[in-house]
């Protein structure tokens, strides 16, 4: 059992810490005449919001510091969430994002006041073009799913431009849930395509579907969600293009092959890139991220506006794109995350980026080797940057992936991704990333082997975990059946 202390009484809600008369912030004195609400229509005015808390600055610091200590972040140790690429978040990126000439910029300042910001956007696009081998990149989308939607909207526009209304998008059963959700929001219907026995794309099935003629695109993750490279990706792209369809590539797993292979040469028409995965911008407890989309020349006319252009050493926004799908969010992109990503790309350089992919793949294979005697591997193809085990050896004694995950918390690790992809029952998707050194990986392997032994020898111990975390297993059924989604004065 770990030494993690049980600690004080649970931290109250900030509202429960409130005490009348406390202030947490003081504004400078008002120098202009006070007008109260006399200049506003009486019916439009509200009183002071009585239930907002009254706490001091010290209260706030104590509260959020204590809350932070209930969290596990990748700064603490291995965080092997498959498909999330929890790598180290460099602090120089944080310093740079906070420079006054970056953090304070207003998006509607004229171009001559923001040449440095436009240069950053232009340079990042150039870097992502080099990394992907594709024609151009839009920096607007705020997250991977947002990028998926953007890419699918461009594909839809390209088809309409051609005079075609293809309504169907093919998506493998191993795909991340955002893929079908995004396709539907782009106005398509989704047909699921079953993976082969090896867990990869079924080319014969693809060919059959394409005969129908209504296929707009195939959405595929490379390497796939098992961490296995899609061996038929080039053939699939050729098949799609021959039938006038497009290839959308989900770039969540890009960390596996940056500097090794180019999605552009695989035939991708649109590829989203998760800056908060591959390019180190912090996960933030659930964002903000950024999901730029790289496109082939076929989709360039449909890019969101504005783009950033460089002419004669000056940078400018350009809205002259008649075929554009328009805007997918306010202003230009999550600029604060774009800055961090460019700083990371500069820090790593061409050599560092390649070593990043090599390290990611090496670490995943080291973990695979260390665990393959203890856990079941349904799909045994060569792993790139992540490996998907499952709980079937342990399930025989009633220990499931969730129990293994909860017991791993007692060993001081964040668990792998669970229950994804859907084609692996009881999945444990492990992605260590290149940030990890051998000691951390060895400690993880040792812990996982220990849990496998515990599952054999004392399954009830595993099923009752975790024991040493700030809270024990939580009643998720109750949370859904009797939703309490906010604090109210005086209780429910």
């Amino acid at each position, binding site marked *: 059992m770990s030494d993690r202390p049980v600690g004080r009484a649970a931290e109250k809600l900030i509202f429960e810490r409130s005490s009348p008369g406390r202030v947490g912030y003081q504004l400078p004195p008002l120098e202009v005449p006070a007008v109260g609400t006399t200049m506003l229509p009486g019916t439009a005015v509200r009183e002071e919001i009585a239930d907002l808390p009254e706490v001091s600055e010290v209260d706030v610091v104590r509260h959020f510091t204590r809350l932070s200590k209930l969290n596990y972040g990748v700064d603490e140790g291995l965080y092997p969430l498959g498909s999330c690429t929890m790598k180290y978040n460099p602090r120089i990126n944080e310093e740079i994002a906070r420079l006054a000439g970056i953090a304070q910029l207003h998006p509607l300042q004229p171009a001559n006041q923001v040449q440095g910001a436009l240069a950053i956007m232009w340079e990042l696009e150039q870097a992502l073009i080099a990394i992907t081998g594709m024609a151009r990149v839009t920096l607007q989308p705020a997250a991977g799913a947002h990028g998926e939607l953007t890419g699918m909207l461009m594909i839809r526009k390209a088809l309409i431009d051609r005079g075609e209304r293809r309504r169907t998008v093919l998506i493998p059963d191993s795909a991340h849930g955002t893929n079908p959700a995004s396709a539907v929001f782009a106005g398509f219907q989704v047909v699921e395509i079953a993976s082969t026995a090896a867990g990869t794309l079924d080319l014969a099935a693809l060919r059959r579907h394409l005969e129908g003629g209504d296929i707009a695109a195939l959405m595929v993750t490379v390497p796939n969600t098992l961490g296995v490279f899609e061996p038929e990706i080039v053939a699939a792209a050729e098949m799609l293009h021959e039938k006038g369809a497009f290839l959308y590539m989900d770039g969540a797993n890009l960390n596996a092959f940056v*500097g090794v292979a180019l999605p552009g040469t695989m035939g991708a028409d649109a590829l989203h890139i998760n800056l908060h995965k591959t390019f180190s911008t912090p996960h933030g407890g659930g964002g903000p991220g950024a999901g730029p989309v790289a496109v082939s020349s076929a989709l360039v006319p449909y890019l969101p506006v504005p783009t950033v252009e460089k002419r004669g050493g000056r940078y400018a926004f350009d809205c002259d794109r008649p075929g554009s799908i328009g805007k997918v969010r306010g202003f230009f992109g999550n600029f604060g995350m774009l800055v961090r990503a460019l700083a990371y790309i500069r820090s790593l350089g061409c050599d560092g980026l390649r070593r990043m992919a090599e390290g990611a793949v090496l670490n995943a294979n080291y973990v695979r080797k260390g665990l393959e005697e203890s856990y079941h591997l349904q799909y045994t193809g060569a792993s790139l940057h992540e490996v998907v085990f499952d709980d079937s050896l342990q399930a025989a004694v009633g220990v499931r992936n969730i129990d293994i995950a909860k017991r791993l918390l007692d060993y001081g690790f964040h668990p792998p991704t669970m229950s994804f992809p859907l084609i692996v029952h009881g999945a444990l998707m492990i992605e260590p990333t290149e940030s990890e050194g051998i000691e951390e990986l060895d400690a993880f392997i040792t812990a996982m082997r220990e849990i496998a032994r515990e599952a054999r020898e004392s399954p009830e111990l595993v099923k009752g975990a975790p024991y040493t975390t700030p809270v024990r297993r939580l009643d998720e059924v109750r949370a859904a059946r009797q939703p309490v989604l906010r604090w109210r004065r005086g209780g429910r």
Partner: protein
Amino acid sequence: MHRYQAGSGDRQRMLATIGISSIEQLFETIPAGVRCEALDLPPARSEEEVRREFWAYAGANAAPDCFASFLGAGVYRHVAPAVADALIQRGEFFTAYTPYQPEVSQGTLQAIFEFQTYVCQLTEQDVANASLYDGATAVVEAVLMAQRILPGRPRVVVAGSLHPEFRAVLDTYEEPLGVTVTEVPWDVHGRLDGAAMAGALGTDVCAVVVQSPNVLGVVEDLHAVGAAAKAAGAMAIHVVAEATSLGVLAPGGRFGFDVVCGELQAFGIPPSFGGPHLGFFASSQAHLRQMPGRLAGETVDSAGKRGFVLTLSTREQHIRRAKATSNICTNHGLMALVATITLSLLGRKGVRETALASHATAEYLKAGVRGQGPGVRLAFPEGPTYNEFLVLHDDPDGLLERLRQEGILGGVSTSRLGGRLPLGILIAATERNTRRECDLLLDALRRLA
């Protein structure tokens, strides 16, 4: 080796354990035809070199804090308490991810619960989600929700004074889903034209979207708009772009609006050239199952201790896939934390005082502008405003450049907002604008307009 990665000594040991002689063997499944040679990028740089490069970029920008700045139009320069940024830089907060394992994520989850509570308090709605990307996509999610709830009604009535950035994004998303937008103009006072709206409503309308304060800075009559929407059987959506306005202005929740949504950037989030900002979404209890985005809920653990978990996930993409209420996965969690900390510091008194100070400062400027000659005049002299107002001018870009040369960023030219607004300058004031800055602006307008 690189400072962010494991060392080469480690590599040799790992290769030996795996039983291969080189890393290249691990890439054998990637065919030769898609391989690349060295990337066409500069080599790795030291931290100091990276710092120099970005200081140069930053130095080529005009930072508003170096000027007397009155920029608004959807992005506002309010107080950002020092301790908020210090707290979010704790690695436990910003290097964690979505709280999939709640037992080691109670910090994130409790903070989300507190954020959801703040949003409900500000909007007088029953339930709020854990954040969306920004105000523009929040408006889109609200309209899409209205579509799901009222499927036979494919039309949306939208105020012409909705921020053009929000409207542009709505148009992008609506087009593939076959929804049409009817725009309602503003009247002589800059408020939604009631007669025009009445004419636009019908049994095929799923929602009415009104921003208040609107892009012209004018405060709408939400009571009237809400009543008209309800009478027509449509959902009423109140959009907020300047969140501090909720410190003095009654939100749509008070008038029976179905959704209050928009942008919370004004509470402590840096402008950052347009992002990341903070979309918020709050609705009445009746629409809970149709809400987009993450929700954190209260529960207990096996020892009876209070805790928080993500809940009602069957709405979301990882469970519901093609039938999800939204495709959103990663949202803007850290920005929600910034707002939560900022709102905690401001608290009951500070939220009120910030709003009153912002409003008073803008009223001082408006009074000053009213007193000037015909060169600069208020677009809507009778329209009530919160902290932003439109001043008409024939050459706003030229005037703003002359102001900049005097150390003043006087506002946002409406020519940069799509061309459907009256030509002039939107001037925004906040609690950060001093009297001296205001007098500088008024004096400069007198001479230069």
